[in-house]
């Protein structure tokens, strides 16, 4: 649902970069999305195609790299992988998990001319 707003933010970030990095066209965007960000990748692709029309990123390719979230298991006293909220610790099954990261929606790099 809010993927439209996220894609608008993405285009704004690209436009903001264009001057300093001296480019006028974006051909590809590599986006890192944390598994715990409430983002639907298919909706991102769909909205990216729409939102980029008439912008410097029109027809650009969107590469999405999904990365696992990480949490601190208070039971094990160690960092564990977390792919979904509500999942237990993969080692001990505890639900006492403190989320460390995995909510990011980050532009890693872009291909430009």
């Amino acid at each position, binding site marked *: *649902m*809010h993927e*439209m*707003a*996220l894609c608008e*933010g*993405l285009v*704004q*970030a690209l436009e903001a*970069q264009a001057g300093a*990095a001296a*480019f006028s*066209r974006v*051909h590809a965007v590599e*986006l890192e*999305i944390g*598994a*715990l*960000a*409430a*983002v*639907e*990748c*298919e909706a991102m*692709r769909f909205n990216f*195609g729409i939102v980029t*029309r008439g912008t410097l990123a*029109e*027809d650009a*390719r*969107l*590469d*999405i*790299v*999904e990365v696992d979230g990480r949490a601190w298991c208070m039971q094990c006293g160690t960092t564990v992988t977390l*792919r*979904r*909220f*509500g999942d237990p610790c993969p080692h001990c099954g505890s*639900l*006492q*998990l*403190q*989320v460390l990261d995995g*909510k*990011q*929606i*980050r*532009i*890693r*790099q*872009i*291909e*430009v*001319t």
Partner: protein
Amino acid sequence: MCGICGCGDTGEHHHEHEHDHGHDHGHDHGHAAEHAHAAGLAPARMVRVEQDIMAANQRHADANRTYFAERGIFVVNLVSSPGSGKTSLLVRTVAALKAEMPVAVIEGDQQTEFDAERIRAAGAPAWQINTGKACHLDAHMVGHALEHLPALEGGILFIENVGNLVCPAGFDLGEAHKVVILSVTEGEDKPLKYPHMFHAADLMLVNKIDLLPHVACDMELILAGALRVNPAIGSVAVSAATGEGFGAWLDWLRQGRERARRAQHGAMQARREALRRELASIDATLAG
């Protein structure tokens, strides 16, 4: 999520799909696309960006948070599905607190002024944001809404988000806490079905408990689900219709307001120090 459709895979399937997508758009823009990728122009290069696309919202949220801190305003962002009773809860809440402290409400809905009118009728200033097509409030909208509200020094600002258990979870508005409201008529599995929101919230209000005799709802299951996605979440059972449970809710708000008032001094000193440094820098420039 991405895990379901497999789009997070970095294998070939992923890339094939990307190309399919590109061709779909190519039909409309084929000619432009050929130009864009034509050889002979400057060669394409990679630029590392490493920027979160929520950064713009975060800047506005940080500015809002500073504004609130310097005025000792306690800010609560109320989130829920539509129909959980957010506005009714706020009407009763502002009526109970308005004699004690400054209170105001920012209302978010796609359309209409209905909610703001209900709050004003309850005796508190309210500003309605109509988001149009958007499914959430963002920090920029809230910053501008502040221009339309009276000074709230040492008081409480309630932000009633758009009724939606998904999108508002991802947008920091500069609030002290997100409070999620779940009514007993919605089903006890909501925290597990919409985990992002229950993870983002610090307090859960279980509303409409006056209806418990009439609906099949296990309060223990609601709390267990919420704690599963957020072991630190607090919980208060209330009825906006009868006022049951409001003592604990109002006390939670009063305590938050006290914390904001106590922190105001530090925020003002930080501001004073920043201004002092800026002034020293200007003096140095003028003297030179």
